[in-house]
């Protein structure tokens, strides 16, 4: 079985919701859509207070090279365009919509038919992906169309679909692969065809044996799809690690996957691409897992963007008594939710309820030089040296020790027997070092 070589940890799976089918979450009465829901230049709001909108109508436009469009997931009236606090409590421009009914734009294909035949040309497909506001749904929300604008002198040799879902707890990729198999495989083929490659590679971790069997079964009716079974190890779903596992190529320090001829997209992105290209449907909803050790019934939902996070919690009878922390995303890389009064955005994959037993940080001890952090670092760094350097604000030394290679996977802090907050310090150091490098380059 394939996997990446360096480092990695094995946290408990806790994929409680992997058997529960995706449920469509009811529409809210009022929704709030942040204008910029991607990584890159901010989008421009193109609606005003009082405008009537339909589902699928463009409400914010990405003008810059790296930017993305946003479409209304609701029909109704724009209540206001205002600053609203996001997950971290930072105020951002948002469009507030009063939801009235569920009226869709005419050109969106709402039938359940599965359209296999790809009629558009590669450039038309990329244009469609751009127009429909597709971003990478693995978490980073990088505009998908930009990945396919391949720089001169580089050549794509591998189209990889990231289906590792290596984060514990999250089960949306798992459910999507079980329930929307054919569509996402068509999506994968579309991505493959953009690059005119013979094969698209899908990497799935071994702990999802049912998915692997099902995918292989359905893929029999397709040509040029290769399913790779990967040995379960965190962080397999990290781009560089996945490329290493499937192609044995290592993305050099400071370079991009395209530098080794690879383009990686998440399974959910592949599904969104299918919907955009074959059904003309923009990215207006997300698959979201609601789970946690103390959650009675972990669930997977299909949620429209802009739905209040609170409503998902309320639909499940409120937070459990022993809640310590709420996480957006997985327990290894997810963000703690600082502001509960906020809304679902593109790429939001999981509301994870961490109970006080697993969420309490242990008392910090002296480093005993056990070298476990060095052993588990998938980038081959030395967290035990980086963290103290960060405490001493020694950014120059941190740069020399390659802190910018850190992918913030959290394996070091997870594994540290002395419970040292390694990644807390390294993340700070990486930010400061990055700022220092940028300042130097602009001089």
């Amino acid at each position, binding site marked *: 079985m394939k996997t990446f070589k360096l480092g990695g940890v094995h946290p408990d799976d806790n994929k409680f919701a992997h058997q529960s089918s995706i449920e469509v979450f009811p529409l809210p009465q009022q929704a709030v859509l942040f204008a910029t829901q991607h990584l890159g230049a901010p989008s421009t709001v193109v609606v005003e207070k009082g405008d009537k909108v339909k589902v699928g109508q463009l409400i914010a436009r990405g003008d810059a090279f790296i930017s993305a469009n946003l479409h209304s997931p609701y029909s109704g009236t724009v209540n206001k365009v205002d600053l609203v606090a996001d997950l971290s409590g930072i105020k951002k421009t948002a469009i507030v919509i009063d939801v009235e009914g569920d009226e869709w734009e005419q050109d969106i294909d709402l039938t359940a038919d599965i359209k296999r035949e790809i009629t558009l040309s590669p450039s038309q497909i990329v244009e469609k992906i751009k127009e429909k506001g597709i971003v990478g749904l693995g978490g980073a929300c990088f505009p998908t169309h930009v990945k396919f604008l391949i720089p001169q002198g580089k050549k794509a040799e591998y189209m990889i679909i990231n289906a590792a879902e290596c984060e514990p707890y999250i089960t949306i990729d798992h459910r999507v692969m079980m329930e929307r198999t054919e569509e996402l495989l068509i999506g994968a083929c579309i991505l493959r065809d953009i690059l005119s490659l013979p094969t698209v590679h899908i990497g799935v971790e071994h702990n999802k044996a049912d998915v692997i069997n099902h995918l292989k079964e359905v893929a029999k009716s397709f040509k040029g799809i290769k399913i790779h079974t990967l040995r379960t190890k965190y962080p397999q779903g990290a781009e560089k690690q996945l490329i290493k596992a499937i192609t044995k190529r290592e993305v050099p320090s400071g370079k991009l996957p395209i530098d080794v001829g690879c383009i990686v997209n998440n399974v959910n992105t592949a599904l969104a691409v299918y919907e955009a290209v074959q059904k003309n449907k923009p990215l207006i909803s997300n698959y979201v897992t609601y789970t946690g050790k103390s959650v009675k019934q972990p669930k997977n939902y299909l949620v429209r963007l802009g739905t209040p996070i609170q409503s998902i919690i309320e639909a499940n009878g409120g937070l459990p008594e022993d809640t310590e922390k709420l996480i957006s995303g997985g327990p290894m890389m997810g963000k703690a939710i600082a502001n509960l009064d906020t809304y679902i955005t593109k790429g939001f994959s999981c509301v994870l309820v961490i109970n006080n037993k697993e969420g309490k940080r242990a008392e910090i001890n002296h480093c005993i030089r056990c070298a476990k952090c060095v052993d588990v670092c998938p980038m081959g760094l030395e967290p035990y040296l980086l963290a103290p350097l960060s405490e001493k604000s020694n950014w120059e030394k941190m740069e020399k020790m390659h802190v910018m290679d850190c992918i913030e996977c959290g394996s070091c802090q997870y594994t540290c*027997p002395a419970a040292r907050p390694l990644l807390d310090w390294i993340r700070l150091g990486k930010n400061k070092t990055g700022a220092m490098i940028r300042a130097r380059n602009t001089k």
Partner: protein
Amino acid sequence: MALLQFSGSPHIHTDESVKKIMWTVVIALIPTMIFSFLFFGIDAIVLTLVSVLSCVFVEWLIQKFLLKGKTTILDGSAVITGLLLAFNLPSSLPIWMVIVGAIVAIGVAKMTFGGLGNNPFNPALVGRVFLLISFPQQMTTWPKPHYWFTQPSVVTDATTGATPLGVIKTGIAQGQDVSQLMDTLPTYVQMLLGERGGSLGEVAALAIIAGGLFMLIRKVISWHIPVAFIGSAFVFAAILHLVNANIYIPPSYHILSGGLLLGAIFMATDMVTSPMSNWGKIIFGIGCGVLTIIIRVAGSYPEGVSFAILIMNALVPLINKGFKPKRFGTHKIKSI
């Protein structure tokens, strides 16, 4: 409901802790301890108890009254130092010397540097070497173990016997041949089971190996240091033996004699005082192995494990600088 917490990822943590690691090592040391009690009787029990208690007590005293801070005696690290110190002493050593050894081990070698995690040298070995240099006669007088399985009726409390390595050292110095000497020494089977003179914890090879395997399975140690240590000692001793079999004993005898196994499995693998990267660990192990044999065959002491490990401990910062872990993305990309 209480306020929700907010902090950076990762939000989960492994079950491992410093305490768990330390107590795992203590458990791994138990077979060796039981064998030492069987071989050396009540003396061994008293010595081990005194050593462990004084190590823990010295740490507590220093933390409580000198540093006036938190006491961490329950983390098990002082217990390990106490056990390992006892395992490196002959059972006939006067009790007050054991206490001196414990004070040096914890007080000088560990707490002066800032306690667990900051000591450059293995505390138990510093304690042992201090005693060896200060009280050479008492430290090299070895009571014969009670050969309980082959001669159950013989009571040997009063007799003393040299260690196999000591016999060889003096024998060769007097011009005797290795093959002659080997006849007077314990056989391999006797060595494995511990039927020979020596310190408390170094005689029962099988018990040490069992403890080592337990630590390997629990991932408290990695294979690199023990394998490199024992392997390099074997290879180096084999070369010497091939060059002149008359004055150099067979390599396998080197491995089983003295404190080599105890050193390679329990002392050199000490996390705090060993290198961080896997290649660093291998270099460290090779250094320990080669130095051990050099001291054994060329030094004035018959045994060299403690000195070898301490010398390599001193080189650890240098090794950490020179042998970095393999970084991701430093391969040359194949042309595409």
